[in-house]
């Protein structure tokens, strides 16, 4: 799709809804709202390190045919490095050494499982897709025979609407 439509020229926004499913952030809160500051620092430190490694792999792939993008990502990487460094330094200072190491290791393990979960979503969808298609075919039969009518006009909207109904 990127190659076909040159999607890099298209304006894109970061929409967090897309990653709720992947288990990276809480749907009802930002991470910093949910975690204590020290734990948040560990979370950032551990995950920014991982993000940095992933981005390096990604930029290596882009280096040959998108040198400008490669450079931009390199700049982002420098930031990632700083975030990780500062966060871990803060966490180290505010935790005991033992507690810091345990929590960091725990966060890395959790992150590892989050990635496994995220990467397996496509495989899950491979399994569920036929089930969903079967449901859709069933609904399509029902809809075909339902003969639903639409009201183009309404003489008394407030009288004819049921305010407690969701349909």
């Amino acid at each position, binding site marked *: 799709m990127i190659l076909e439509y040159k999607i890099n020229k298209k304006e894109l926004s970061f929409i967090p809804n897309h990653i709720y499913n992947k288990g990276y952030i809480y749907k009802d809160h930002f991470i910093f709202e949910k975690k204590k500051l020290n734990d948040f620092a560990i979370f950032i430190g551990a995950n920014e390190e991982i993000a940095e490694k992933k981005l390096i792999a990604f930029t290596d792939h882009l280096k040959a045919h998108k040198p400008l993008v490669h450079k931009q990502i390199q700049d982002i990487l420098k930031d990632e490095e700083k975030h990780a460094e500062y966060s871990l330094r803060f966490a180290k200072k505010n935790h005991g050494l033992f507690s810091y190491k345990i929590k960091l290791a725990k966060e890395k393990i959790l992150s590892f499982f989050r990635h496994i979960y995220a990467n397996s979503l496509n495989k899950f969808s491979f399994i569920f897709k036929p089930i969903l298609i079967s449901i859709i075919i069933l609904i399509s039969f029902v809809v075909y025979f339902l003969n639903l009518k639409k009201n183009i006009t309404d003489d008394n*909207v407030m009288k004819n609407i049921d305010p407690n109904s969701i349909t």
Partner: protein
Amino acid sequence: MYYIGISAYYHESSVFLTDNNGTDCFIKEESFSRIKGDKNFPQRCLKFLIKKFDLKNDNIKSICFYEKPFKSWWEIFKYSIKNPFENRDFLIHHLKNFNEGSIFFYTDINKLINISRNKIVYSSHHLSHCLYGLSVIKDVSDYVYITCDGVGEGETMSVYTIDNNFKIKKLWTNFYPDSIGLFYSTITEYLGFEINEGEFKVMSLSSFGKPIYEKELKEIFDINNFKINMDYFEFHKNPSKSFSKKLYDLFGEPYLDIREEKNFNKYADIASSAQLILEHTMKNLIKKAYDLSGKRKIVLTGGVALNCKMIHNLSKQSIFEELIVPPSPGDSGSAVGAANFAFLEKSKNKTLNFNNIYLGPEKKLINKKENKDNFFLKVNLTNDYIIEATNKLINGEVIATYYGSNEVGPRSLGNTSILCNAANHESVINLNLNLKKRQHFQPLAPILLEEDFEKYFSINKSIIKNLEWMGTLCDAKQTLYNKYNSIIHVDGTCRTQIIKDKNSITYKILKNMKNYGSDILVNTSFNISKDPVVFDLFDVYVNMKRMKIEFILMDDGLYQTKNL
């Protein structure tokens, strides 16, 4: 007792609370989450309101959601399921998202506040738009109400009338997928802009081109019968792309880089043609509304009504006596319409009273006083901070404003704005391109006193009311070219705002500016492009530092940012 209207899950989430006795509070979820156009359930807004107004089951009369949740989900699904195999990707996506939408609105509300089930009511999508329109007019029976948007509960265009006893009649409806809103959004996406965000860029871009693709686009959207040719679209079958290969074949490659002149000209021509199709369609819709109702005064709502160029061009065709587009005609403003529905549903023959268009919370309700002292330093040396602010503007300084109540619509109307002297060309360019980081083809908007309007601008009287909230364009006169050239768009128009309220700080500044021979300011919303408008003093401070704006005018003085 409070009435609460909520709009959420599909476009900018917002909440409107009112007691219909002077307390009004309209807020958007994006103000808290800082995600532009945040469409999630507005839990942060509601938490804010619960805390500020001590909301509980006992003091809430009704909470109204702006549409029928299941109907909204089903109507789109129903269309695509006619061809289940061909549209399977969209259907699977839609089915998977069943529980992500508004179906569980009641559950979401109850997580925050224990409310009796009978206090939760559901309006209808276009009806909420229509009822929001009542906030800016007095004699409801004089008007015909047209709603036109992408889609809501399967409806794309509606025509209503309301009599003096608030009996509402729906005279006509057009249904999904025949939507001029979706047509325009698809062109927006084809040109590489974001749907729901980029439409106003297409509108600005259209002024640079010629409508040479009018004939081709008329094949795609039938302007007389309001029918869409689905061969060119994929929004019913593909959840991530709205146009089909056929549109690609017709106009060539999408998403070209418009920084290259050749691409810019081509895309400007496509935008211009799409704009023309939109205007022809709306003209025919207005004629239809007149035929059905016999009324020549119109209230236009729905996302399509945000196209102020269309409003301006339609006014030149003498097809209506008056046309009013309220400040927030899109889904976000429907929270106000939903609250109005809740009130009308209880009272049967009365709607809410609206005294002004600034329905947002006052700044003092949002912030703690100590935050002001922590981040800002009062700099006005004399008691008259208006004079000091004016001096700075005259000297070419860009000043932020943060006073009064917040605005409802997408446009900042002076209370949460960035101002600079329109006569200072360098300041205007610096503000647009460097501070706000907007595209070069997007002009900035002027703001001036009502009494000075005719000196610089001309407009058809039928749409003049919209100038109070930047709801339309107007034409620049030669006097404007002579003195304020940098605020005029390439087609000779400006999205002007007039100030009437003599007690407002903006009025006083403009009045004072005249002593220095300058009577127009540039007014742009207080945010960087793609960010939400600032809400609390933290946002104000961060945005001022990011944009390198030093001074800010608040309710009680002129302030400077501290270096923390």
